């Protein structure tokens, strides 16, 4: 009997060990090379991009023969991230959206990379805004890239149909939120299409609302000298911002009939000429890739100004490392990033990589022609990359120049605590004012502030 029990226990242990082994990615191969798996690898139906990446691998191996790159086609998405992260199946190096970073850091699904960032010389180039995004307790957890400042994307066709373009065909962009409402009204009146579209669900409503709320002077939270956080947005400024959103629907009637709008719905409406304006990152590839929008309908302006100024959310991507990564793997990963042009520095090789990127985008019919407004990188790097943008531009650059100037725009990172939960709460406020004509913004903001304090901030205090 005892023998049988031992047999059963040994079998169970063997199975458990096998399963546990499945949960660990290879860190070094037999020859002692540092192995890193890289997420977001192009699939077989993107042959040009795949060939480009394979070229980068060869280039890296010429310089660093002790690094082995393993392609992994997984790209970040909320449904598969947690299962992959908790089972140790994330690629060594993966990219995610800036909005996800804090959650990932707090959940412990990424490795700390402060020393390696310093060794690679990247650390000193992180701007305070970037540090706010990737830092916790003085430690760095990610390498931001493709940083952008949100802008007001405008459909040139609808502007033209509404008679809102100048002699060069450039839209007359609204400069303030008041002008935005008026411009949207004219478009609605002249074309019958929605003048503006705002997202309202999946936390995106709250996320985009930040732009308006900050511009109206809203302060969402503050920390006292004891380190306690207090929600502070039960204020006339936040109420005025929500009232503005309500007016867009019930006073100006410039929003679409559908009040359940996520990002794809917003992109679809814009790309198919059903909506004239929306807040977004510069160059939304889905417009062309998914909805086949002609690229000459694209233009972008800086965010409008509110009573308290011109504020725009900072967005972008961030490279992070699997929590189980070794120091060697992190070092190798940063070398790989430099190899593909994700670096604040510039040299001939890096410029060649950047140029290849623009050329490929142009060949694929994607929009090229907007210079980065991010302050990442040295002046030399920015100047050289801007020249390449001009060289490969496939749109009329007059349509984007005002955005590039970004006159008086203050770019802001997300709120420091529980930003996703805050967005969810604000989503509900926005949905309420858009679906109920009698909704009271003051009451909604008061409840939202109280819920946010009680459900989240009190928990961390």
């Amino acid at each position, binding site marked *: 009997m005892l023998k049988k029990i031992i047999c059963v226990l040994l079998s169970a242990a063997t199975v458990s060990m096998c399963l546990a082994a499945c949960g660990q990615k290879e860190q070094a191969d037999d020859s002692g090379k540092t192995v890193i798996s890289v997420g977001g690898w192009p699939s077989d139906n993107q042959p040009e991009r795949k060939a480009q990446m394979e070229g980068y691998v060869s280039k890296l191996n010429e310089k660093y023969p002790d690094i082995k790159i393993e392609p992994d086609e997984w790209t970040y998405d909320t449904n598969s991230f947690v299962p992959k992260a*908790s089972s140790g199946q994330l690629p060594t190096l993966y990219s995610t959206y800036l909005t996800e970073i804090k959650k990932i850091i707090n959940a412990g699904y990424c490795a700390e990379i402060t020393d390696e960032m310093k060794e690679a010389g990247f650390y000193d180039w992180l701007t305070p805004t970037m540090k706010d995004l990737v830092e916790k307790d003085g430690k760095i957890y990610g390498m931001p890239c493709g940083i952008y400042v949100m802008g007001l994307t405008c459909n040139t066709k609808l502007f033209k149909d509404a008679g809102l373009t100048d002699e060069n065909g450039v839209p007359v962009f609204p400069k303030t939120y008041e002008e935005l409402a008026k411009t949207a009204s004219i478009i609605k009146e002249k074309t019958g299409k929605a003048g503006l579209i705002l997202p309202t669900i999946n936390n995106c409503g709250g996320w985009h609302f930040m732009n308006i709320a900050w511009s109206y002077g809203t302060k969402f939270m503050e920390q006292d000298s004891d380190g306690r956080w207090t929600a502070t947005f039960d204020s006339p400024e936040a109420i005025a911002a929500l009232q503005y959103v309500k007016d867009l629907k019930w006073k100006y009637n410039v929003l679409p009939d559908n009040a359940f709008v996520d990002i794809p719905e917003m992109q679809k409406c814009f790309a198919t000429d059903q909506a004239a304006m929306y807040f977004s990152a510069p160059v939304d590839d889905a417009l062309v890739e998914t909805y086949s929008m002609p690229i000459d309908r694209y233009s972008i302006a800086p965010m409008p100004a509110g009573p308290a100024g011109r504020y725009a959310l900072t967005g972008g991507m961030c490279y992070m490392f699997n929590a189980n990564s070794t120091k060697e793997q992190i070092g190798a990963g940063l070398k790989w990033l430099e190899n593909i042009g994700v670096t604040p520095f510039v040299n001939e090789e890096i410029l060649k990589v950047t140029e290849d990127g623009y050329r490929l985008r142009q060949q694929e019919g994607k929009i090229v022609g907007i210079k980065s407004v991010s302050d990442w990188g040295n002046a030399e790097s920015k100047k050289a990359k801007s020249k390449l943008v001009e060289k490969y531009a496939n749109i009329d650059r007059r349509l984007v120049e005002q955005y590039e100037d970004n006159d008086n725009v203050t770019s802001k990172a997300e709120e420091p605590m529980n930003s996703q939960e805050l967005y969810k709460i604000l989503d*509900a406020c926005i*949905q309420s004012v858009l679906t109920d004509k009698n909704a009271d913004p003051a009451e909604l903001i008061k409840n939202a502030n109280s819920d946010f304090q009680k459900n989240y901030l009190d928990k961390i205090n």
Partner: protein
Amino acid sequence: MKLKETHKSVIKTIKINWKQWIIILPSVLLFYFMVWRPIGVGTFLSFFKLQNYKPVEFTGLQNYKDVLFDTLFLKTLKNTASYVIWSLIIGFFPPVILAVMINEIVHGKNFLKFSIYLPVIVPSIAASLIWYFMYQAGDGGFLNMIIGKFGIAPSAWLQNQKMTIPLIIVSMTWRGCGSTMIMYLATLQGINQELYEAVRIDGGGLFRRFITITLPHILPVMLLLLIRQIIGVFQVMVEPMTMTGGGPDNASVSLSLQIYNYAFTYFQPERALALGVITFFLLIGITIFYFMADKKIGE
């Protein structure tokens, strides 16, 4: 000593029926890995602070407190109950009526069966998207275009907070009705036809046949499917997630959608597990009630 005897008797039972045990072994393993173990581990982990799904600190009932005192919890629970009630009002009787109708008709039976069953094979996300487009507000919405032909003003449909849950239930009924109807039909077809003949000879019509023969025969199945429907609808997630994202103003957020949000949107698996355990016990309560009711009816 007692434990030893129990072990001996278990082993003896297995030895006697070893072939049967081998046959059910795959199911037992599947149940263990897919149901029993996750329930056990999930319940255990719900009492801890987790890092990477590993317990790092015992927190007792803190996760439960966080979930229960969340200002959204009561609304979520109320919404979930509302889903169940509306599903019983809108969705419980159509399968019975359809099954009785199909059982009674002579021609086109197979075609009707197939037609009513067809939506079942549509994936729930696809079905939700179809209904999402039908329910679109404004003049361009499919249903609004139809009612517009009759001179009726466009409706806000899902955007009307009072209508959101009933409308989601309509879409769920459309999709789920077929499979329930098939179960009723199978029961109806198992009824001895001579009983119906006897009622006919006595001069009984359709209504009397239904009351005296059909209803008593399908009542136990109705009770079973009632509980199954309550349990199924209690876990509604895909439909509100696809059609409304839980809105407007959280009017359609359900317990399961909130569990999903905790786990995948906010990366707070502790809270997701605690709410999962609470939901589990609520469902256990309903199931016990079912067994008690079933026993009473049996008696």
